[in-house]
């Protein structure tokens, strides 16, 4: 499978703690994106990182990409209750196909 595989599948942390999710893939990529999906809603784009980039930040979000290890991580700092959601990575491969992983379900405990 070429799909991104997120890990862990589920994560529960206390509000205020940092949350780290990982994504591994098997093929060469053009870029990798992270999306958030709240229950019953559509996806919200978080960050796109290109294959020649190693790190990007957006507010409390930090994404890293290691193409040698074919992996990416999403760090959410100082988590809030509103961060409770499913997080998906999506790779765009060299054939310009987009493939989503199965997601990490993040639950922020009050």
């Amino acid at each position, binding site marked *: 499978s070429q799909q991104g595989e997120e890990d862990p599948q589920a994560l529960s942390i206390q509000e205020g703690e940092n949350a780290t999710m990982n994504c591994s893939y098997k093929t060469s990529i053009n*870029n990798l994106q992270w999306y958030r999906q709240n229950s019953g809603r*559509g*996806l919200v*784009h978080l960050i*796109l990182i290109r294959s020649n980039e190693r790190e990007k930040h957006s507010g409390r979000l930090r994404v890293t990409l290691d193409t040698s290890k074919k992996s990416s991580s999403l760090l959410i700092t100082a988590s809030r209750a509103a961060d409770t959601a499913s997080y*998906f990575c999506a790779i765009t491969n060299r054939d310009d196909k987009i493939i989503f992983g199965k997601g990490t379900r993040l639950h922020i405990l009050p």
Partner: protein
Amino acid sequence: GAGVSQSPRYKVAKRGQDVALRCDPISGHVSLFWYQQALGQGPEFLTYFQNEAQLDKSGLPSDRFFAERPEGSVSTLKIQRTQQEDSAVYLCASSLAGSGRFLYEQYFGPGTRLTVT
């Protein structure tokens, strides 16, 4: 401004019925995508339009699935003779991208949850 809207939000169909799912993209967005999301899974790409042209339909699972965007704005995904395995959430997304379709942010609608009984 208005985001991507989809209708209906929920659809229950008996096996064998035809269904039509509508997507209203953000005004001015060139690219439009349809995805299928099974329960507990990530979205799977179905098809892609650039304006009214359907440039990629490689993800459509069978010839029972048909999509159109005749005027380059609203799109309809039609599923003929629905089967139980078609039960899923169907997501529509649009973006400003012309070329480099996956290089830019996609804006997703809330999805249509289709249940085939």
